[in-house]
């Protein structure tokens, strides 16, 4: 090897190695770009920064949010900035980026120096060596690693969307549970008065021990239900704390007093399947996987053969998503799928199988996304109807029953206990309405995540019917 040639090879390698550098922010801006509009309805939620000054500023914002009654918007923002699990996930993405760079950086040349002496002679040997194979495969590995990282970035973005949704759910559950626990305080108050009056009735001989015992049983039941409600509120809050990444003094925040009101109109179901296939990060990741396999095998049209997920699909659509859905629908559906199978050779077979695998995974993801979005919308719509019914019909109806019972008490047609029992039923209806409202917002969270984010896993569904209403005695 001449010195000049040797130099040129080294220079080329150095050039290639120089192109591969780690992302300065650990790919966070890439993740942020992917999660824009996908963080549980919170616009422009920041992700944890890598530089210490920005982190300190984030902590300040977090403390500011925690000083106010915690809104769901603030909760999501805090979680995205402060959740250690997400930080770990994003750090892992930085690690993957570094590994990518490492993988496509040429290993340092090995310099071997040797000095050998005998009684007759002395030999000094100098060898400069580096792996030729690494150099040859460098372009291929660069592309592969880049694509692998893109998929990892998409997955990290899904985790961000999931955390945002999880935090919003935790916030909804915590706020609703506190509201419900407050209704149990009122139910216990009503039962306490009933039991105390019953005790006085028995004391003066107006009631038997049996009649008194019935009211005592009502009180015990109300107390135990309140204990459960308080526990539910505490555990729901702890779940939120975990998502927010807070503990100790920071966990002493006050929650917002109420859930957001129900919307006046429901989101329409039009085009939700198309939106989900276009927007969802998991579908995009599956497409990227198929693209990667297809490109590697030189099958730019692989998607046409295997990747038909029901929506017009071409490679361009994934890279040019910003141009909008009209581009997506560019009609190559009229093109016939070409039978491109080449059965020659194990490598070809392997490559073909990998493309088939990726294509099937894309289809699987797409079918799942379609099903999930339909189920999510139906759940959302039903939850809205149920919550509206509970709020607009059942609660006023229970109030009417309560008021009418009071009128009957006035006429000595009903007893104090009848009145108190109806007051408890009325309060129970309020608790049921709060839970229905919570279930609606949970369903709405699922719908948003399913529409543009990722698979929500098991849908939250709706909680089953309300607790049985108590019945006054004596009839």
């Amino acid at each position, binding site marked *: 090897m001449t010195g000049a040639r040797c130099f040129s090879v080294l220079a080329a390698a150095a050039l290639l190695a120089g192109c591969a550098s780690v992302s300065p922010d650990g790919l966070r801006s890439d993740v942020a770009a992917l999660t824009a509009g996908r963080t549980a309805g919170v616009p422009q939620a920041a992700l944890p920064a890598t530089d210490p000054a920005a982190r300190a500023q984030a902590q300040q914002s977090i403390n500011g949010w925690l000083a106010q009654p915690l809104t769901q918007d603030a909760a999501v923002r805090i979680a995205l900035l402060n959740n250690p699990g997400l930080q770990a996930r994003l750090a892992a993405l930085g690690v993957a980026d570094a590994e990518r760079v490492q993988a496509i950086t040429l290993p340092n040349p090995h310099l071997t120096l040797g000095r050998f002496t005998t009684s007759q002679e002395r030999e000094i040997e100098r060898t400069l060596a580096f792996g030729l194979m690494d150099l040859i495969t460098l372009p291929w590995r660069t592309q592969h690693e880049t694509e692998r990282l893109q998929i990892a970035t998409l997955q990290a973005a899904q985790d961000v969307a999931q955390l945002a949704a999880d935090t919003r759910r935790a916030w909804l559950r915590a706020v609703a549970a506190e509201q419900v626990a407050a209704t149990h305080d*009122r139910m216990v*108050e*009503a039962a*306490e*008065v009933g039991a*105390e*009056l019953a005790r*006085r*009735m*028995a*004391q*003066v*001989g*107006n*009631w*038997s*021990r049996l*009649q008194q015992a019935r009211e005592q049983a009502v009180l015990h039941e109300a107390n135990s239900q309140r204990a459960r409600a308080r526990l539910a509120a505490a555990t729901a809050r702890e779940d939120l704390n975990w998502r927010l990444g807070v503990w100790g003094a920071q966990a002493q925040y006050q929650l917002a007093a109420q859930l957001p009101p129900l919307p006046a109109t429901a989101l329409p179901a039009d085009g939700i399947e198309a939106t989900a296939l276009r927007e969802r990060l998991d579908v995009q990741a599956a497409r990227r996987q198929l693209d990667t396999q297809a490109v590697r095998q030189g099958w730019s049209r692989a998607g046409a053969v295997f990747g038909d997920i029901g929506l017009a699909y071409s490679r361009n659509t994934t890279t040019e998503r910003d141009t909008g859905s009209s581009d997506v629908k560019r009609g190559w559906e009229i093109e016939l799928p070409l039978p491109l199978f080449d059965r020659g050779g194990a490598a070809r077979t392997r490559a073909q199988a990998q493309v088939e695998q990726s294509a099937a995974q894309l289809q699987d993801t797409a079918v799942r996304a379609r099903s999930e979005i339909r189920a999510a919308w139906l759940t959302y719509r039903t939850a809205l109807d149920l919550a509206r019914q509970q709020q607009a019909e059942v609660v006023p109806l229970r109030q009417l029953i*309560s008021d*009418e019972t*009071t*009128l*009957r*008490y*006035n*006429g*000595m*047609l*009903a*007893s*104090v*206990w009848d*009145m*108190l029992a109806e*007051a408890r039923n009325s309060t129970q209806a309020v608790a049921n309405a709060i839970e229905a409202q919570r279930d609606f917002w949970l369903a709405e969270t699922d719908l948003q995540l399913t529409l543009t984010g990722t698979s929500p896993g098991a849908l939250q569904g709706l909680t089953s019917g309300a607790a049985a209403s108590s019945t006054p005695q*004596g*009839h």
Partner: protein
Amino acid sequence: MNRRNFFSGAATAVAAASVSRVALAALPEPAMQSSADTAPPLHPPTGRPYNPVVTLNGWTAPWRMNAGVKEFHLVAEPVVREVAPGFMVNMWGYNGQSPGPTIEVVEGDRVRIFVTNRLPEHTTIHWHGQRLPNGMDGVGGLTQPAIQPGKTFVYEFVARRPGTFMYHPHADEMVQMAMGMMGLWITHPKGSHPQIAKVQRDYAFLLNAFDVEPGSMTPKVNTMLDHNIWCWNSRVFPSISPLVARQGERVRIRVGNLTMTNHPIHMHGHEFEVTGTDGGPVPHSARWPEVTTDIAVGQMRQVEFIADEPGDWALHCHKSHHTMGAMGHSVPSMIGVDHRGLVGKIQKIVPDYMVMGERGMADMGAMEMPLPDNTFPMMTGTGPFGPLEMGGMFTTLKVRADQPAGSYIDPGAFKQPTGTQAFEWQGAPASTPRPARTDIPGTAPAAASARKPAASGHQH
């Protein structure tokens, strides 16, 4: 009380003095009544003379004479009866009201009654207590086919026996009577009768009862005894017209019972005699003085007395539940229960709550709390000295020295002569220490003696 409305009602059609032959071949126009007030006595424009009765919160049906026959037309139909002002009940009745119009005839009259059925189901009319041909007795299925909706039947017989009678359906009888279908029938004696005295006032009413769920309008027809609206002529205190009399007048009261329990009718201030039943006049030798007469189910009693004690005298059923309005029979008694410290707590839960019943139920009569719609209160009515705490089978007999003969105007509250009213003791208060309570509530008196000593170590 209720002076304003007394006698303001009158039948919308009155008996025609002369009618054409063609018209006589047609059905008589039914007289309808829209008022629940007491109509003035109907002095007979045709036929034999008699002294008419006054039907409390009711009226007498006019008739037409057709070739010597008194013709009446009863229309069985759904009505809305004002049981008390503001308390309306969906009933079934006759000619616009429940009860139906009183039919007044004279002993020996031939009577023809057209009965038109405008009910949703068939009906008949049974002429309770009358001597008549079997086929005119009005028992559906037994003596005649029932009158189908839209059909008119004709009953015709001679009023053979003077006395106090009633009429009511004998087809789906339980439902139709629970809905208010009934009426009075008076057969006046022809000329003078040795056992029927001439009276200056002759009042008549029927006892009837309904079960109306508070806040509703239609009686529950399946209730047997637990009714909550106890009426005289489908009317309750304080909306039942008072019975008025001039001091010294002889007064007759005719009462029939079409509820499902007996009613001991009690009069204050006077003794009376039962001078007749639906079986006829009681012989003088069989009469005895009473202040209460029990009227069993399906019975009529006719009592007479001289109204010689001026004043406002209570006249009522002596079953105290029957002088009450709607009440909750399962509401526990709160008497003697200390509510201290609880009122505020209950008001926090039910803001409109007021303590009632702690000292008794009289609070109810005074407080006038809002009630469910169309609900007659358990106790109501106010007199010159405060709440009467009544509601149901209660009214007053008003005897006045200056009440004009034949006038039924309510004279208002009685002005008691000075020194004739109970008064408050002004001396030293009575010393009435409460005895200490010796028993423990909820301990059976026989429990200690019944217990075997070995069976249990502890004592209550």
